[in-house]
């Protein structure tokens, strides 16, 4: 099947999106099959089947024959599974997984446009083996070699073609070949039959047409009218070389019997055509007008796959960029509304009680409500359930567990929890690493577990849930836990901290050393999680999207990593503060508390101003000075300063600001290429009055005061 169709980049994108979803659905289904091997849920099998079928259709449309053939072969096995003819066994599950792997490679092949040189022979053989045995029944009745074929009426062009050929001394034949219901790709067989005939003659017409065949629209058989100089025997010979077809009719064409008025002869012939001949019957009895192009579509054989209809879907795919643009537009709308509001307040002052200003006031209130709704809806449109991300993990855990020789009971909860699309995109890798870590380092070997009085199978729980204005994703295991003693020893050995300092660390502080660059609790880096990426990178990646991660562990009982994420990257809740007459925003997620502190309470430790709160020493950062902002002349420091205490990973500093303004949702905008990255600043936002406010990057501000070394130093004091 050539790919002589107009495939646009958009088609490919849609295909890739769809394929990704289908592959994930299949993977989830196969995993379920495996876990319920003794009593598989027919629904699950049906789901996998449906996904394979849809993928077959779309890959065939795209002209990816190997992908279509593979999915078709999977379909056959799944069909037998569905009918209870085979049962769920480990080889079966493994084969299905291998198929998925190959399909993923095919998908990438389509995405990149570069052939991946995959050989499907082996996996096809495995599938064939699974499919084989029991009832390898051939299509029942041996075909009659004579009779008539119910062909549609010839068009004038076809008639002319036929007459010309006959004038040249060629003979016209009609043929009907049955496509075996067991055929992996009936369309391919039909296509081969067409080619075989075209090789020795000229096809006048076929049902289905070549185009339909290329589109995978084939029924139970293929009907042909062709001219050739060869003998009937020769035609027989070439057709017999096509596997998985059976010649039912091959006879000289009788032009006197147009199909437009089907005589009893044809009906008998059609009825005699076995096995499932509904396609033929349909063509025969319903023949009056269907033009060749309008032949009944595929899947007429009983028990065959049901074409998934899309009419029931109420969703559309939208480019994220469109949503971003919508979001921007709404932002402007809000700003314009604020301007109108200002006009209104002036009107109200100048023309008190004026009817016009009252109308405007109510219209503006309404406008405000509507823009608010709009903003909320668009934000919601950007949200996706984490399910899309979580679906990847069960298979990964299964593979890692197999490799590590561990038995893992993997539980996923809260898949329906929604997160902004951009957050989901960023959080996949860090989560994958934490999960690998749990399986590889967290869960003990079966022997160790049994010795510790635990069940042999370890449990890993991945859970997502809401917590206030955040989403928490927790990765929990019931493994050996993190031993602070071992961490201390390891950190000292690796030169991350001095022995003296290590001894002073509390147990939770010691556990937090795992985040230090270059730290790994296992002495040897295992094949599974040792990919050169440490937990420090995981932490950095999570912080980059305004999230945070913490570890909670009990020796002998297990470890939990808690990833705290903002609901969205685009909008954050921020504390607005004032610095030398300008508004700045501090992401509320990192704000611990705000306080007014008399300057007399500021102490100086090692040339740095600090305050002491509840026995904790908190270094201060005077933002105006740090940013080099010019104070107006004659500025005198007030007797009390405003301090916003922020924390990143338990490291606290106090930001000194001029005053507190309030809090609100702000949309983060980049500062752009011309300005570039400025330490301490993560972006800007447009306020309700159209002014721009700078958003502070708390993480880098904390780093600037308490570097990695500085932190340990403070701890060690």
């Amino acid at each position, binding site marked *: 099947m050539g790919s002589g169709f107009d495939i646009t980049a958009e088609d490919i994108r849609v295909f890739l999106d769809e394929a990704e979803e289908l592959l994930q659905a299949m993977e989830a289904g196969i995993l379920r099959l495996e876990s319920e091997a003794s009593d598989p849920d027919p629904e699950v099998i049906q789901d996998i089947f449906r996904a394979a079928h849809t993928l077959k259709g779309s890959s065939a449309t795209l002209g990816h024959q190997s992908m279509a053939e593979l999915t078709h072969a999977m379909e056959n096995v799944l069909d037998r599974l569905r009918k209870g003819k085979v049962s769920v066994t480990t080889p079966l599950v493994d084969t299905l997984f291998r198929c998925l792997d190959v399909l993923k490679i095919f998908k990438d092949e389509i995405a990149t446009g570069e052939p991946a040189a995959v050989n499907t022979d082996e996996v096809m053989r495995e599938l064939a083996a699974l499919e084989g045995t029991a009832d390898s029944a051939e299509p029942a009745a041996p075909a009659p070699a004579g009779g008539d074929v119910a062909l549609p009426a010839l068009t004038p062009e076809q008639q002319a073609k036929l007459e010309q050929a006959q004038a040249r001394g060629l003979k016209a034949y009609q043929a009907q070949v049955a496509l075996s219901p067991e055929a992996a790709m009936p369309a391919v067989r039909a296509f081969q039959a067409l080619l075989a005939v075209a090789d020795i003659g000229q096809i006048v017409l076929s049902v289905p047409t070549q185009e339909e065949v290329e589109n995978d629209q084939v029924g139970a058989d293929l009907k042909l009218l062709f001219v050739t100089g060869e003998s009937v025997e020769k035609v027989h010979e070439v057709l017999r070389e096509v596997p998985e077809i059976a010649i039912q009719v091959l006879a000289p064409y009788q032009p006197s019997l147009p199909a437009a008025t089907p005589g009893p002869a044809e009906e008998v012939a059609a009825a005699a055509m076995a096995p499932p001949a509904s396609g033929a019957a349909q063509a025969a009895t319903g023949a009056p007008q269907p033009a060749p192009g309008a032949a009944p579509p595929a899947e007429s054989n009983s028990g065959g796959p049901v074409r998934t209809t899309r009419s029931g879907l109420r969703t559309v795919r939208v480019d994220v960029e469109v949503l971003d643009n919508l979001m921007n537009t709404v932002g402007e709308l809000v700003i314009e509304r604020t301007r109108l509001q200002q006009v209104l307040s002036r009107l109200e002052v100048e023309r008190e009680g004026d009817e016009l200003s009252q109308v405007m006031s109510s219209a503006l209130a309404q406008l405000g409500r509507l823009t608010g709704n709009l903003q909320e809806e668009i934000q919601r449109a950007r949200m996706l359930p984490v399910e899309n991300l979580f679906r990847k993990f069960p298979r990964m855990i299964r593979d890692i567990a197999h490799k590590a020789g561990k038995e893992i009971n993997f539980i996923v909860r809260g898949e329906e929890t929604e997160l902004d699309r951009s957050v989901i995109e960023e959080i996949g890798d860090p989560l994958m690493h934490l999960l690998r870590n749990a399986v590889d380092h967290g869960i003990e070997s079966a022997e160790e577990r049994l010795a510790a009085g635990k069940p042999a199978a370890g449990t890993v729980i991945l859970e997502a849930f809401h917590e206030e204005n955040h989403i928490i994703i927790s990765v929990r295991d019931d493994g050996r836990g993190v031993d602070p003693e071992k961490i201390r020893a390891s950190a000292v050995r690796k030169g991350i901290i001095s022995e003296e300092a290590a001894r002073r660390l509390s147990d939770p502080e010691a556990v937090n050393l795992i985040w230090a660059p270059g730290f790994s609790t296992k002495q040897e880096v295992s094949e599974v999680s040792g990919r050169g990426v440490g937990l420090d990178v995981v932490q950095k990646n999570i912080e980059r999207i305004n999230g945070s991660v913490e570890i909670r562990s009990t020796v002998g009982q297990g470890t939990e990593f808690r990833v705290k994420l903002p609901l969205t990257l685009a909008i954050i809740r921020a504390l607005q503060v004032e610095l030398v007459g300008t508004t700045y925003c501090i992401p509320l997620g990192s704000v611990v508390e705000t306080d007014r502190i008399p300057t007399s309470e500021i102490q100086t430790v090692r040339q740095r101003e600090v305050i002491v709160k509840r026995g904790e020493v908190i270094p201060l950062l005077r933002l105006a000075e740090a940013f080099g902002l010019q104070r107006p002349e004659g500025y005198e420091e007030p007797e009390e300063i405003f301090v916003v205490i922020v924390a990143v990973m338990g490291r606290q500093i106090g930001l000194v600001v001029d005053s507190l303004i309030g809090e609100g949702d702000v949309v983060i905008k980049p500062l752009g290429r011309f*300005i570039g990255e400025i330490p301490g600043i993560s972006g800007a936002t447009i306020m309700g009055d159209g002014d721009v406010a700078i958003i502070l990057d708390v993480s880098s501000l904390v780093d600037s005061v308490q570097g990695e070394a500085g932190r340990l130093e403070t701890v060690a004091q």
Partner: protein
Amino acid sequence: MERVTAADEQVVVFTIGGQEYALPISGVREIITWTAPTPVPEAPPYVEGVISVRGEVLPVVDLSRRFGLVSDRAEEQRRIIILEMDGQSAGLIVDDVVAVESVAAGRLAPPSPLLVNIGGLNDAVVDGILQLGENRLVVVLGPARMLETALQ
């Protein structure tokens, strides 16, 4: 008004500190009235700050400071020319926008060192000199190079 022919290019003529300058209109997205920029701490030297234009946050550059010119306008009377290059935009603070002029091909003289130094500019940012009238010489700036220079 001069007639615009196909070979003509249009330039936006504006003033800074009494001197006339021009920018090719192809690089100008729009011209807006004064909007006070929000200062960005530790931004490149000639970035006056950022403003919001249609939901976008854009940096604003003050050329008069870059070239040692003294603006003769009150802030509120100044204007901001929004330049756009490669999908990135930035604002340029000017005293006033005078006119949009058509330049017949060939009337743009290459910058002579003598003329260029009039406005305290250097040839890094000047595309050419345009003679608009008897005693009217306009320095035509190259927007991309100018922004690059300003942000250095």
